[in-house]
């Protein structure tokens, strides 16, 4: 199976934050052949453990979050329309006319309904419709949907030019793929550290999956593999990074500087394209919670540059996923459990 096919399958898994169990069962299957054992906890966090032959070896945790942004049904109207609320942050401006899947036992197709423009004054057309005024059209006169049912974007993966793809929830299924690709490159018997791969629940709300998982795994080192903003014409240049520019290595208080610098040395040694992403405070990722879980970890963040985050058409370049996977694998192969702060 090729990379795009796996990504397509990962992105198709429904896993709105708080509703990850179905997705967890499937990613556990992907993980199985690559690790010694796989566990799924009560939140839906999937953990796979690779034990190295060295006694008393340190542990490196690789985390990518399993959950995705989505919606939840808050009211069922009489004529088949559904009121909904967002789970995770979304821009209301790209929701009108958006296709969604309502995750009932048998999923239901829906469209975020939209007033025809000629029925609106031009001043009304210029204003964004707030999400609490939007409705999902199921086309059913009596939809069997209960309040609390999760809803996801329906957008299937689209293959773009230049080795790029667009899909819903590449945040953070692209990160999951990067970890799976890295594990494929690793021979457990050659490792000097134990590796725990974790696909965690509820990053988009509280990061509870990753913090609970890190507490349990007690890693010495933890890498959050997530996505971060790639440049687009409408985004501030100073807050975005090169699309196709390689893996982003995070620096700042949420990250252990020696660990970050070690990763950069590995990237240079293996000729892997990387960019430095400096974050001066809360990174808004699982790293923020994992760093202080239990006795704490030496933390790193590797990010895949992604455009249009939290839309149905999140876009990544496959070469950036490869760079991330290769950096993780390259680092783990040579890692004996100590990082050094020199450049």
């Amino acid at each position, binding site marked *: 199976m090729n990379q795009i096919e796996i990504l397509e399958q990962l992105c198709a898994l429904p896993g709105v934050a708080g509703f990850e169990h179905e997705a967890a069962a499937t990613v556990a299957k992907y993980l199985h052949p690559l690790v010694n054992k796989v566990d799924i906890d009560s939140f839906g966090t999937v953990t796979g453990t690779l034990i190295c032959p060295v006694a008393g070896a340190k542990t490196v945790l690789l985390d990518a979050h399993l959950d995705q942004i989505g919606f939840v049904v808050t009211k069922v109207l009489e004529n088949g329309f559904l009121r909904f609320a967002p789970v995770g942050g979304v821009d209301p401006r790209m929701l009108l006319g958006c296709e969604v899947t309502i995750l009932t036992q048998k999923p239901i197709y829906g469209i975020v309904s939209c007033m025809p423009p000629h029925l609106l004054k031009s001043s009304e057309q210029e204003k964004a419709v707030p999400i609490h005024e939007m409705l999902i059209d199921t086309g059913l006169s009596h939809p069997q949907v209960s309040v609390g049912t999760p809803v996801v974007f329906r957008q299937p993966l689209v293959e773009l030019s230049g080795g790029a*793809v667009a899909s819903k929830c590449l945040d953070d299924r692209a990160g999951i793929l990067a970890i799976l690709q890295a594990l494929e490159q690793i021979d457990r018997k050659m490792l000097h550290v134990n590796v725990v791969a974790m696909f965690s629940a509820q990053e988009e709300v509280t990061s509870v999956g990753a913090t609970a998982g890190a507490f349990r795994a007690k890693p010495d080192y933890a890498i959050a593999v997530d996505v971060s903003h790639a440049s687009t014409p409408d985004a501030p240049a100073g807050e975005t990074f090169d699309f196709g520019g390689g893996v982003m290595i995070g620096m700042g208080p949420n990250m252990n500087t020696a660990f970050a610098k070690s990763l950069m040395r590995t990237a240079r040694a293996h000729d892997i394209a990387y960019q430095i992403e400096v974050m001066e405070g809360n990174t808004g990722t699982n790293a923020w919670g994992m760093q202080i879980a239990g006795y704490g970890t030496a933390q790193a963040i590797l990010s895949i540059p992604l455009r249009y985050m939290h839309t149905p058409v999140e*876009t990544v370049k496959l070469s950036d996923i490869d760079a991330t996977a290769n950096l993780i694998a390259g680092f783990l192969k040579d890692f004996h459990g100590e990082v050094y702060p020199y450049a």
Partner: protein
Amino acid sequence: MLDLLKTLCCMDGPSGAEDVVREFIRSHAAHFADDIRTDAMGNLMVFRKGIKHPAKPVMLCAHMDEVGFIIKRITNEGMLKFGFTGGVDPRVALGRAVRFGQVKGIVGIKAVHLTTASEREHMPKTKDLYIDIGVTSKDEALAKVQPGDYGTFDSDIVEFGDGLLKAKAIDDRFGCAVLLALLRDKPPLDTWFVFTVQEEAGLRGAATAAFALRPDLCLVVEGTTAADLAEVPPHKQVCALGKGAVIPFMDGRTIYDEGLFDMLRQAAETQDIPWQTKHMIAGGTDAGRIHMACAGARTVGLAVPVRYIHSPVSTAALSDMRDVYALARAFLEGIAQSIE
């Protein structure tokens, strides 16, 4: 007819680039046609002899084009600046997949994390929108697309709800499908089946087709706006899905012929075909050109109600489609009966 409609909706024919649709319709029509013509605009006019031969054939009309995109400029970063061909609601374009032939793209909107509160409250201006095809330079983009290339929404077919169909371009591939389905049987009287271009660009194709054919009588088969959505007040709902064929009496461009309107209404009532009319006088169809062509033509319309028209998720009811088809057939029979 449903399979035909699905095939037609999957084809790309934005106003100004209807070639693929025209060639498909031509190949389907050829077997039944007694005469096929095209003109400088790109209209397709198909004649079939009927059982009766009035002095002038009757004309049926549907438009082949759909709303879409045209590339205006390519930025140094490889993004496509574009214009809409036809009346796309820019609000439904954000974050949608589009295609220029085999080249896929998306209408970009920066991550919510990078927006300000006031940005999130106002829709971006069309001139600020761009399409991302995945490349990062102008040269890479130019290897895939050129300024002047036409595109459409990239949207699949979904049957959902209580007998609904979602697709792009239901307006007016539905009309094309009705005409093609009627063309398969020998019509009750000599008939021109006319497939026009550029309706969405301002009823352009119908002008030359009607001038060339000079019909006395014409039926335009269309898709029309339905706003039967929850929380829309009844006086703004226009028409409703599942309530039958729309027989309009008037829109922004045409007052439809009273006699023909009555004939259709009576046909619907005697044959028990559900029908409704439009409760809002807005928009326009090819009838706007046809009824004014040459010395004028008595013109009437039939339409299927479409929610989210001019968007990638236009939605219509299968039952309404059947009702429009039945009434279009009844129209030809009624006209044939009236000429002895």
